[in-house]
């Protein structure tokens, strides 16, 4: 009788938990191989979006104890408006309710340099840090809204499902400043809560995220 289905033990290799099947380095036998530890969970694409939200358990988003560390890659996030209150890219964290208002203490500094060569400097910006505040954390300020300008960066969130520790986060990103130049921004801090963080939302301080992509990855630890 012909074999209709092969099982895990049908292959001439010793099964290893959570490993994949691969050819060995001589291409003359099977071996087991590790997959990547950086796992794409979800991609959200902005299209005149009021916000982009990653909610655990919704739309295939995982943001729980599946991974100990999560990374958000923000790529070409473009604001709908410039000036006034509409030119700050920001993030909020949800810690149990439906609101993105987890209390945070954070630091914020940046370096700037104009396209005309002016203003090269690095400085702490105390108008954008937070001291046990529930407002959204600014990640980019004074953004330009020309068609070719945007913010790109990476946010790392450590162990959001912990119910023991506060939740550390670290951001670095850069954007085109409204006065025509680069601003390289460093933000770090913690959500000063022991409740789990189960959702993260990005938005502009006013107006929309006109365009751009935010990708969520889990960093596996086994």
């Amino acid at each position, binding site marked *: 009788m012909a074999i209709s289905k092969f099982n895990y033990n049908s292959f001439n290799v010793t099964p290893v938990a959570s490993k994949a099947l691969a050819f060995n380095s001589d291409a003359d036998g099977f071996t087991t191989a*590790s997959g990547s530890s950086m796992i794409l969970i979800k991609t959200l694409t902005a299209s005149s979006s009021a916000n982009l939200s990653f909610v655990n358990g919704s739309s295939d988003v995982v943001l729980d104890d599946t991974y100990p560390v999560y990374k958000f890659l923000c790529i070409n996030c473009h604001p709908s408006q410039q000036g006034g209150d509409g030119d700050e890219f920001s993030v909020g964290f949800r810690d149990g309710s439906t609101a993105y208002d987890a209390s945070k203490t954070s630091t914020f500094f940046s370096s700037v340099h104009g396209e005309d060569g002016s203003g090269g400097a690095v400085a702490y910006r105390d108008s954008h840090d937070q001291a046990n505040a529930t407002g959204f954390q600014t990640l980019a300020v004074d953004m330009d809204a020309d068609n070719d300008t945007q913010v790109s960066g990476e946010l790392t969130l450590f162990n959001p499902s912990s119910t023991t520790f506060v939740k550390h986060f670290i951001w670095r990103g850069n954007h085109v400043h409204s006065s025509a130049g680069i601003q390289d921004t460093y933000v770090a801090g913690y959500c000063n809560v022991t409740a789990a963080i189960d959702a993260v939302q990005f938005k502009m301080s006013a107006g929309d995220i006109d365009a751009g992509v935010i990708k969520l990855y889990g960093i596996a630890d086994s």
Partner: protein
Amino acid sequence: MAISKLNFNSLNVTPTASKGIGFDSGADDLEASFSGGSMVFISKFTSDGSDDTATFTNIDSTYKEYVFVCTNLHPQTDSREFQVNFRDGSTAYDATKTTTYFRAYHDEADSATTLSYDGNNDEAQSTDPQYLSSSVGADADQSTSGILHLFNPSSTTFVKHFISTFNHNTADDYSQVIYVAGYCNVTAAIDGVQFTFRTGEIQGGTITLYGIN
């Protein structure tokens, strides 16, 4: 006679060295083109609540970059420095290092901020451990988290560069972020990395080691 085990040439796909096997884009054939990703899990340290050290000795030429992801490292005692050192041939973690160290902090009471270079915590041809976080608090919810990158540790030609970013709660309730970069000023291979608190135990947290293909 029944087939007992399928061999590498039993599948309808051309074997390719070190490649994984998957379905093709049409889901109607096999292909051997999967590389398994470039960030590869190697090992994990999980504190048992009373560890003097967290030590990794599986560092070699397999990868050109090693990444240590440190999550919620919790000290036994208030105001302790989380630190790292490197092994360069002997059994001791004492590779000579030159480093930079700068920080930003902001307290929960909104009374103080800084962005400054800290000349007390950098190293100049020192064999001492390098601080990655300073004055970490020991309250139950306090810890330090961050990432350390170590480049080409197996080189016997170049010094060994490393870069880290760590955030932590201080004992007096500041959020403090520390940026360290430097090099082990040795051409011997680095084959071990050890994390400790300046004094006392590691009483919680994990450190996960990855290799970057």
